[in-house]
Structures are given as C-alpha cells and as structure tokens.
C-alpha cells in the first residue's frame, strides 16, 4: 500500500466545466442536488462505480472536471433512467451522463482499449457507413479493438445464435446510404455554426 497525498486546490477546479454542465442538456438542475444519494441507491451499477452518481453530481457542480470525466461511473451507466425517475429534485441525471460521455469521448478522457467508448465509436462508424447495425459484425469489431481473446468465450454462444438463425453475417443497410452521411454532416455543420 502506497501513501498518496490528496488535497484539492481551488486552482484545480474548472469553472468553465461548471458553466458547461449547468447549461448543457440534462445538467440544468444539477445545482439543486441535495446529495441525498437516492440516485446511487437506486442505481443497479453504483456498486461498481469509483464515484457514486451522488458524488459525481457534487464533483461536477464543484468543477472537478478531471475526476468526473475520467471516472468509470459515466461508462458504467446503462442509461436505465432509474435515478432520473426517482430523483426528488427532478435532475435529469441520465441525460447528464450522456453529456459527460460525449465530452469524455471528445476529450479522450477514457482508459485505452476501454470497451464501452470503443463500442460507441464503432457503433457510430457502422451507422455512418450503412445506416443500420449488424450486431454480429459490431460485436466482432469491438472485441478486436479491445480484447480479442474474449471472443473465444463467445464461440459457443455464436454457434447457438448461428444455429437458431439469429446471427446474420450479411450486412444490414439502408437504400440511401448517402442520405445518412449527408444527414450527419448537416448536423455537424449546424453545430459549428452554433459554436460560432
């Protein structure tokens, strides 16, 4: 066990982050948080989190960006909305988690080869490419990019799926694939516009 000196200086806080989170979709009401912990209590995954949702709320509104964006919490969130429905202060916790994920991905705030963000990335690529998801192919890609060896563990399942005709290798796609690209690009243009 190694000793570690932990003290937080105000200089380490990022006021910009607070401004952003309190203005971003989902984060608007975060300041109202009473720190009652019901979100953590009702969350099926809080047991695995380094920071419970409650703590994440506090860290976010106090502007400890590092801690928040590099925490596992946002990736463990399965977006089941339990916290959001229960929250006595009607804070859109789940939506805020999305916001934090997007920002964490944008600013590369996650562990290398960490499957969840990779999945998100691959997922988006596949859609950009074909407009639809072919689960089997997606799973393959993610595994190859994260932990190929784990694929072996799934061989049996794969066979089962194959046998029951639930694993299609043929690629699902939309007719007007160009549309999808145009659509997504349009969004990006507009975003840039708004940023300006």
């Amino acid at each position, binding site marked *: 066990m190694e000793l570690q000196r*932990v*003290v*937080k*200086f*105000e*200089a380490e806080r990022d006021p910009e982050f*607070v401004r952003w989170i*309190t203005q971003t979709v989902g984060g608007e009401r975060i*300041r*109202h*948080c*009473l*720190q009652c912990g019901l979100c953590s209590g009702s969350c099926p995954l809080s047991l695995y989190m380094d920071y419970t949702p*409650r*703590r994440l709320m*506090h*860290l976010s509104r*106090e502007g*400890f960006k590092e801690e928040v964006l590099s925490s596992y919490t946002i990736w463990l969130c399965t977006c089941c909305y339990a916290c959001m429905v229960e929250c006595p*202060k009607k804070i859109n916790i789940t939506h805020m988690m999305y916001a934090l994920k997007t920002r964490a991905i944008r600013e590369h705030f996650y562990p290398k080869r960490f499957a969840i963000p990779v999945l998100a990335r691959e997922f988006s690529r596949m859609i950009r490419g074909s407009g639809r998801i072919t689960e089997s192919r997606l799973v393959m890609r993610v595994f190859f990019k994260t932990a190929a060896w784990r694929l072996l563990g799934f061989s049996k399942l794969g066979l089962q799926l194959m046998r029951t005709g639930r694993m299609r290798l043929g690629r699902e796609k939309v007719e007007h694939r160009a549309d999808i690209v145009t659509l997504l690009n349009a969004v990006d243009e507009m975003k840039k516009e708004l940023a300006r």
Partner: protein
Amino acid sequence: MPDARNGGSAPAAKIGVYVCHCGTNIAGTVDVRALTEYAAGLPDVAVAREYRYMCSDPGQELIRRDIKDCGLNRIVVASCSPLMHEPTFRGALIQAGINPFLLQMVNIREHVSWVHTSKQEATTKAKDLVRAAVRRVRLHQPLEKRRVEINPSVLVVGGGIAGIHAALNIANSGKHVYLVERQPTIGGHMAYFDKTFPTLDCAACILTPKMTAVGSHRNITLWTYAEVAAVEGYVGNYKVKVRHKPRYILDDLCIGCQECVEACIYKEGRWADEFNFGLSKRKPIYLPFPQAVPQKVLIDPEACIEFKSHKCKKTCVEACGERKAIDFNQRESFDEIEVGSIIIATGFKTFDASRNVYYGYGKYKNVYTSLEIERLINASGPTGGEIVLSDGGKPKMVGIVHCVGSRDHNTNRWCSKVCCMYSLKLAHLIRERTGAEVYNFYIDMRTPGKGYEEFYDRLLDEGVHFVRGRVAEVTDWPVHPSEKGKLIIRAEDTLAGFVRRIPVDMVVLSVGLEPQADARDVRRLFNISCSEEGWFLERHPKLAPVSTFTDGVFIAGACQGPKDIPDSVAQAGAAAAEAMALADAKYVELEPYTAHVIDEACSGCKTCLTICPYTAISFVEETKTARVNEVLCKGCGTCVATCPSASIEQNMFEDQEIFEEVEGLLAYA
C-alpha cells in the same frame, strides 16, 4: 392517629388509595396490583384501587364516587409528580365536596418507575412511599387557599423584538406596561439586520414601526438605558426597583434634533460605535442609530472632555440652547413600580469568535462575525451597505463558516438553530451585492420552517458553493501560487471525499447564540431557574413553554433558547396572553402553606423575626408572642425549623406530618 400538638382527635380517617398505571409508564416497572393490595391492608385504608390513567376523567370519577359512596375523608394518589397533577386531583376532591388539602400524592413515576429497573425494588420503594403517605394524610387538615388581588400592569424586561411584541400586545389590551431596556435604544438584535430570512423583507421596515409604536403608546412606560435592580413580592403583587443609568441628557427635554452632536467640538467620530461593532466611529455625544427609539442622544463620559477636564467649550450645550436638555451632573436614579406579572425577554448574546483560535478572528483583518457582516450589508451601516474588505476592496471569494460556537463540546453543545438560515441569507446578499463566489461550510443544513427549505433550494440554484465539512482552520499561509495574499480555508469536503483548500478574500464566521453573560444573575433577580447551559428554564418544555416555576414570571424569545424572529414573536405573544389572562382573573389563589404561631407555646424569643426573609413575622407586645402575617408569609417554613420552642407550625408541613411520613417510610421495612 391523633396529634399531641394539634390536640383534640380528628375524625377517624377513612382513606382511599388510588394507584395509577400511567399506561405502562408506571405499571411497566411497578407491580401495581401488588401495590394496591398492599395499600388495601394499611390501617385506616377503606378503599384501594388501581386504574390505567388516574388523571383521566373516568380515573377521577373513581375517586369522586368513592368519596361520595364510601364517605372517604382522606385521599392518597400514587401516580406522577405532585408538581404535575396535584391540581388535577385536588379538583376532584373539590368536586366530590371535600377539602382539596386532604390529599397526598405519591410520586411513583418520576421518582420510581422511570428511574429504577428492578420491578421488585421499584415495587418495594413504591410500597414504602405509599405507606408513608397513608400515615401522613391522616393528619392533613382542611385548608383554605389565600386570595390575593392581581395588579393588572406588567413589567417587560428587554426591548428586543420579543419584548416589543409582548409589550404592544398587552398595552393594546388596555393594561399598563413598563418596558425596561438596558441599551439606550430598543430594537435588540433585529435592529442590526438589513434583511430577514427567508422572505428577505427589510428588517427596518417591519421593526421600526413597532419600535415607534412602543415609544408613543400611552399604555407603555418605556425606560431605556435602565435595568431592573431588585424584585420582591409574589404573583400579582411584585415590587420592582428600576435603575436608570445616567445618559446625561434630560429625556423629556431632548427632542432628538442632534444639533448637539453636530456642534460637538470633535468634528469627527473617534470612539468605536457600539452599534456597528466598532466598524465605524462616533462622537462623545451621539444617537445610537438613526431609527433609535427613543430619539434621545446620550453622552459617553469616558469620551467627553467635559467629564475629563471640565474645560470643554460645551458647544453642545450652546447648540441645545433654550431646550437645556444636557445635564452633566445627572446621576443614576431609581424608580419603584408595582406590577402583577413580569415577562423576561432578555434575549441572547453571540458566541465570542476569538474563542476559536483556528479561525483567526481578531488576527486576520478580513475575518468577520456574521453580526459584523450584517452591519456591512445594512444600508444604514458603516459602509452604507457596501460589502468591502478592510482595505476597501471588493471581495471576489467569500467563505461562510457555519456552526462557530455551536454543536461543539469544546464550546457550546447545542445547535443555535438560526445560523444555517442567516448564513444562507448572507450568502445570497453577498453574492447579490458583490457577485463574489460564496462558499458555505456546513455540518448539516438545517432549514425547518415555513419557506426555509425552499430558500435553501433557491440558494443552491444561485450557484453558491456548499461544502459539507467543518472548517479546520483559516490561515494566510499559501502552499500554492493561487493562494498568495488570500485567507485559505481548509476543510474536508465530505461529499467529494477529499480535503480542500479554498482561498478567499473574506471569511464570515456564523457565530452561534449563547445565554446573556449575566443570565444567572438575572434569573436570581427574578427567582427562576436556568438550564445547565444558562437558558431560562420553562415550566414545561411542551405544555408550559413560556411559564416559569415562579408564578407570574414568564419568559419569551431567545433567553429561553436559540430562536429566530418568528418563533420569538410567537413566544412573546404567548407570554403576553399568559400575563393578560392573569391580570383579567383579577385575583389569584396562593397555596396556604403559611406558618402560624401557637401563642401558648411561644416564648417570645424573637428568633423567628430575624430569620424571616419577608419580614412577615412581627412581635406582639401585648401577648409577648410572635405573629405571622399570612399575606406576607410565603411558606418556606424556615421559621418553623428555627423556633427553639417548636411553637410555629406550617400548614401542610407540620412537624407531626413529616415525622409520620418519615416513620412511614422506614416502618420496620
């Protein structure tokens, strides 16, 4: 058993013993059945019964019926403390047509079931006590309560919001009120504030009208800069001596024009202005603050040259001219008043922040107490409402430290109740006026009360920082470049789970509430009790919150415990109602526990005369015996114990009765 001293044989006693279960309060620890059976076997006991709640109407009915049906002439009730229900059961006796003093209560709840655990021992003790009561009650004599008239006027001590409110209530009911305030003006702590939580309405706007109303009310005699010097008498008939401190101004002549203040040879104030906690300076002659009531100036003899050298040009006197209101030779004077009841509303004092050395109060210039900030924020304050640092600059970061001198076994154990809310108020005002980042350091956020939690929610939304953790220290020693030239607050952010160092420009210490420094003297003066902390003790925490154990003396406001304005006002209203009820009753009945001399036994040694604190005993030359004036006698019984010839007796506490009780307690147990 007849009594040698009282002579003659009393009618044979027929005693009824009534044992109360008080639900399980008593029955849970005392074997009430065994106790009742035991009582039934005692001599002269005609009836012994147990019942779930004796004080309930059916319970009392048991007693009433037995008195009628079985012709009982003595009653013993074994239940709670006589101080709780003696009046109740005496009432029952009266209704049943026998003298209420033929009752003896046995305290088997407070003194037995609640303090002992072994059923066997508790039951034994209860038996002993009942046995003693049975033996004692046989000697009880019918007694008559004394009626005394009640003086309808009321004394209110303390001119804070509680005193003001109580005084106005009573005065409006047409009774006369004497309001005595120690400071040169009324208004109390509320006068310091700019805004009040949670509505943020302006304190002055709601307080000033009440203050002026007091000043001008024809039923109120307002004495400021005065103190109660002595109190004697009893409920309905208190004699109070009031000391007037010299303000060197003739009240009735001063019209408050303050031309004298203008004219003072000191063109600038030089002396710490008490009302602004020294944040501003005043002259030797001054008005406490603009809205002061009464609008009378006063002179500070410590500061005024005339008092030091007698060589002052006395420009003030010139300025006052024809009015001749200034009198350098004024001496302290006294007034004697008679009132029927007294309301004590002497308020609180705030915790001395310098007692907590780690917060650097008095060491760092920019560490203030919450009251000082109240003045800084106040439009009529030293900075005209500007929140500024000692160097005049605007604070960019402000830390508000909660629970200073509260919830702390090293200082005061109690929660001061108002700090969370006023800290929120200050946080809001500071943010509003300076736009500074405000940090609240709290242990728990306590916001019970109408609109309080909502106010907290509002503050959360305003982006005030809330760090849950008691501040460990305030220091000016930077360990990080960003901390240079700042005051650094160190505390664990228990919600984030790490220690934080927060550099601020200004620290506000939310000081807790304490009993007044002289609370203990005051309580002696009025013969009431204090809790261990020094708050005045109410007769019952729930059912008699403004009464004391001294009849006719009531308490209101923060002198009874930390309270915010609404609570203080509510209590003041309650106290006023109690006082008015007393006054409207016209007369009050006093316990007949007075002493009386048995002439034939009295040797006329006069020992008792010297010992009686109320000079109620006089010497009758004709008979050469002492005589007790029953109106003056308060029934302490000291004279009885002192009399060498055992020729003084005290009703209800006759030697014989006590001997019997003692013997009963110990009888071959």
